[in-house]
């Protein structure tokens, strides 16, 4: 069945509205001109090249990568056992635990960042980097718990009992039987957490100091001062990076099953 004309028109306009701006950014990053404009003035790779020479971008890129990878790994280390407890045990106060670990998704990030700065970083002298790391971990935790829980719900729980009756320990059954079967879900949670953390701004706004900034916050600051296409170039590069990761994950894992 093909669409009737009005439906096709609506859909085209919606897609144009959603994707168009991104295409304009991509086009603008290949501009030869010195200011951000569309259509681009000529073609060059100079803005793409410039991205790699800006010292603060390089630094904040590394910071963001460490936060996204490290924070997501810690969130998984906390979230996988919690999800397991909630799906396989009669956990006391299960609803309370679920609410607590998923609360960071409801409370606006800027408040989390400010609260940490004011009541943890300043009075306790906690290093900004550590606070940033903990905040990103808390932010990713709800996603880790939710995606891994969904993956566990799809796995029959009697296979663990079967393993135990064949002589496995509880821990052995988890590592030999459960883990291999929820690997896809864990990887999906990792990618979702990574993208969420990497693109996150509000949590990190207040948690920056000299030389400590996440990449998106750094980009916001740069945009206020310089109006050249290098931020566009950087945006395009990041977009292609995250699209590449997600598409690869979709291709090899069927990522969208878990989200």
């Amino acid at each position, binding site marked *: 069945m093909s669409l009737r004309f009005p439906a096709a028109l609506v859909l085209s306009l919606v897609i144009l509205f959603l994707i168009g701006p991104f295409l304009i950014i991509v086009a603008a990053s290949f501009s030869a001109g010195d200011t951000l404009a569309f259509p681009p003035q000529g073609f060059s790779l100079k803005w793409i090249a410039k991205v790699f020479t800006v010292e603060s971008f390089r630094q904040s890129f590394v910071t963001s990568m460490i936060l996204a990878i490290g924070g997501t790994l810690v969130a998984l280390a906390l979230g996988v056992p919690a999800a397991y407890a909630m799906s396989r045990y009669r956990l006391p106060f299960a609803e309370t635990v679920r609410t607590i670990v998923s609360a960071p998704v409801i409370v606006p990030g800027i408040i989390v960042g400010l609260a940490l700065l004011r009541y943890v970083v300043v009075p306790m002298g906690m290093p900004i980097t550590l606070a940033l790391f903990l905040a990103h971990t808390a932010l990713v935790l709800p996603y880790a718990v939710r995606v891994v829980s969904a993956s566990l719900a799809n796995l029959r729980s009697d296979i663990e009992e*079967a393993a135990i009756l064949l002589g496995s320990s509880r821990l052995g059954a988890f590592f030999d039987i459960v883990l291999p079967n929820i690997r896809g879900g864990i990887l999906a949670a990792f990618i979702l957490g990574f993208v969420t953390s990497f693109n996150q701004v509000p949590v990190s706004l207040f948690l920056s100091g000299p030389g400590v900034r996440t990449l998106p916050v750094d980009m916001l600051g740069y945009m206020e001062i310089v109006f050249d296409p290098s931020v566009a170039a950087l945006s395009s590069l990041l977009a292609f990076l995250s699209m590449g990761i997600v598409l690869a994950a979709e291709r090899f894992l069927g990522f969208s099953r878990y989200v």
Partner: protein
Amino acid sequence: MSDQSYLALDGLTLGYGDTVAVEKLDLTIGKGELVALLGPSGCGKTTTMRAIAGLLAPSAGTIRLDGADITRVAANRRQVGLVFQSYALFPHLTVFDNVGFGLRLKGLKGAALRDKVEAGLTSVGLAAYAGRKPPELSGGQQQRVALARSMVMEPKVLLLDEPLSNLDARLRLDMRTELQRVQAQTGVTMIFVTHDQAEALSLADRIVVMRGGRIEQIGTPEEIYNRPVSRFVADFVGFENIFSIRDGRLWLGDAAVPLSASLPAAAGLAFRPRTVALGAGPLSGVVRGVSFAGSTREYVLDTSFGTIRADADASLPVHPPGTTVAFDLPIGQAACLKAD
């Protein structure tokens, strides 16, 4: 230890929180016996099986196996095998690795492992499937893998949860023969749980009928089928006409049956539809419905004291709906029930 009480449950009480699923259950099972736990869902049969496996800790009572008290022994050291209703095969492992899983944990490797796994797979006719993954197998094949996986561990007791219920009619027959053969060859003690009386009757040496967390009756298939001792068991194995005896008379519910025969000293009598003698006798009823069932016709009769179900040989002439038929309830062929 005697062979008659190889597995002994003594005062076993099981429950989740405040709800008691099984109460003070006593049961002994002999070595090499094939026993069925039969009952409707919620009767406690599955809970009992899980307790024997060690997946559920009893709140009171003991379980003894082969002379040792295993009540507090962890599930992974009990030497009890369980074939799950869903088969519970490990989806990420090959058939070979599924069957070899427990053996590897025992420390077997190399040729010793391979020989045992192959022998196990050969015995269930699946040697050619060692390299496949479970999702590539049919339901019947998966169940055989699950059986082999348990049997290579040489368990003292093999538990089976509804072993035939997920199979179609032809495969049921195959699996029944298979289980009887495995039992004959290895002499393993087998306990299986089922809600299907036909399954229990055809497979078991002895049947334990359970109801509401208690044992209702224990007996051979013949005893259970022909001499149910309670209304519940009678109803469960297909006695569709069940009467109580009060004041020397026969009652269907609250209606007295106008039958002047001497009644046995029992609390009730139960008749299969097949034993109701249709065509002549002191009682009569109006045919409400009749349906053809191959070798018999099944009648539903409305009588002055209630509904009676009767089967008659299909070669006899039909009594059409609306006609009045005489019939008899031959007391000698009834099952005598004790008080509930």
